[in-house]
């Protein structure tokens, strides 16, 4: 009897421990965001967003970093999207089961786990130096594109996989070629899923700091980029730079910039989830 009661107690105790742990992470996150809001919210105004960086904390703004981030996101998408979707289509619909296809799969799985800073080293040597792009927006975009490529490929594959086999059967039975089936049936049907994957990888890319530092993105850039060959900074690097300064004013700036960065990140995530839900509803109709 005693044993059973003890076991019951242990069970109950674990339940509360479980609830505690589950809430722990979320509570801590709430505390983080709370302190950041307290620190930085008052600093956010139109000037902050449109000002250039400055040695004077009160005058400094995120304009160049923000435009840099926009440039980087845009070019990265331009490079990674077609490449990733094409690779995913090949792996999912064309590649025959065999050595080549296993190697490709293992390789992509491995690339997804490579630390982002290693991509920075790759970008430094290949894009900045060998291809002589310098520490430009282009070099940064290529580097990040390679970084998010595995994510785009995997999520596109999942989206294509979700299209029922019956659609493929019907299309082939009507005499459509493989490419016609892919372009006229599979891609339209999986579009929502692909979009979700792309937006999620962008929300990851917007927060990437280390690889861009390695390729030479500057911490102090007095101008916004106007061409892909320009030097640049991005929002997280600006934040990093301000954190490294001892003056309290810069800590406030960092907090304010973080709020903007978090807003962008969470917005992207929310949009992705919205599209994913809409797409899943459409598919299950």
């Amino acid at each position: 009897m005693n044993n059973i009661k003890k076991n019951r107690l242990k069970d109950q105790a674990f339940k509360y421990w479980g609830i505690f742990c589950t809430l722990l992470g979320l509570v801590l996150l709430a505390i983080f965001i709370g302190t950041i809001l307290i620190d930085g919210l008052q600093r956010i105004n139109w000037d902050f967003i449109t000002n250039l960086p400055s040695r004077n904390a009160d005058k400094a703004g995120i304009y160049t970093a923000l435009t840099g981030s926009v440039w980087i996101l845009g070019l990265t998408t331009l490079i990674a999207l077609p490449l990733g979707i094409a690779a995913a289509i090949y792996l999912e619909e064309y590649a025959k089961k065999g050595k080549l296809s296993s190697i490709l799969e293992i390789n992509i799985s491995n690339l997804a786990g490579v630390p982002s800073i290693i991509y920075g080293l790759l970008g430094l040597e290949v894009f900045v130096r060998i291809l002589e792009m310098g520490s430009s927006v282009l070099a940064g975009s290529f580097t990040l594109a390679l970084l998010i490529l595995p994510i785009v490929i995997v999520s596109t594959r999942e989206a294509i996989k979700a299209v029922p086999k019956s659609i493929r059967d019907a299309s082939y039975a009507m005499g459509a070629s493989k490419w016609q089936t892919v372009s006229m049936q599979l891609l339209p049907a999986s579009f929502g899923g692909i979009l979700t994957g792309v937006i999620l990888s962008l929300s990851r890319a917007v927060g990437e700091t280390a690889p861009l530092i390695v390729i030479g993105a500057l911490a102090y850039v007095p101008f916004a980029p106007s061409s892909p060959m320009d030097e640049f900074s991005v929002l997280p690097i600006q934040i990093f730079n301000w954190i490294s300064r001892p003056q309290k004013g810069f800590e406030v700036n960092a907090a304010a910039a973080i709020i903007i960065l978090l807003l962008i990140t969470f917005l992207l995530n929310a949009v992705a989830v919205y599209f994913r839900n809409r797409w899943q509803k459409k598919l299950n109709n």
Partner: protein
Amino acid sequence: MVKKEKEQLIDKSLKKQHKLSASGIRVFYDNFEAIKGIDMNIKANKVTAFIGPSGCGKSTFLRLFNRMNDYIDGFRMEGEILIDGDNIYKKKVNVEQLRKQVGMVFQKPNPFPKSIFENVAYGLKIQGIKDKKFLQDKVEDSLKKVALWEEVKTDLNKSALALSGGQQQRLCIARTLAVEPSIILMDEPTSALDPLSTAKIEELIYELKKEYTIIIVTHNMQQAARVSDRTAFFYMGDLIEYDSTKKIFTNPEKKANRELHNRTIWIKDLKYDKFRPT
């Protein structure tokens, strides 16, 4: 003329009378022998039914005629399949062209997640046909043939997935008809439908055979009896009997062989479990 050549010529002209002809067919999935040696000739503008218990190979055999088995890993075939006298498994055969001539309707209705119009027009669009008027006429024509036109004409842009099961299946038949095949393969086309829709489709098949050659796989004995001119009975990869439907269902071959006797009981009583191979 040498005797052998003469025989071949006669053979060939006999085969030419047949719309479809299969000889010496054996089908393997890796090491599993799914079809064990079948010869069959099918006449034009008739409805031929394939019947038999689950797993007997009737669907596999059906799919030989539009080469849908090609997509299955490990598929291997011996023998010849001729359509209008031409071997469709020759290397230079354009499979996509073949499938415009031989259409297929599947067991579970599988309309594309597009509008009703786009579904029916798909087969034409993949051939490169862009003429709007032509497409519209063709779509209307095909929908009329399957008696769906009146029900959907007010909103052809509605999603095909919003139609009922029976309507979706008729839509699938319509899109097959739009490319003007000469042969239509139907793989248990009504098994996922309610009795009313089933009846409508059986009516449709009866109408369609005037213009098309139809092969229908069905596990429903009564349907085969109602709808087909000739019936082929498959069991475990073999073709047990192939004759006019009337003959198979009312007066099957009497033989002293216990196997055929049991099979007779099976067909007469329409019960699977009485069938025991020797």
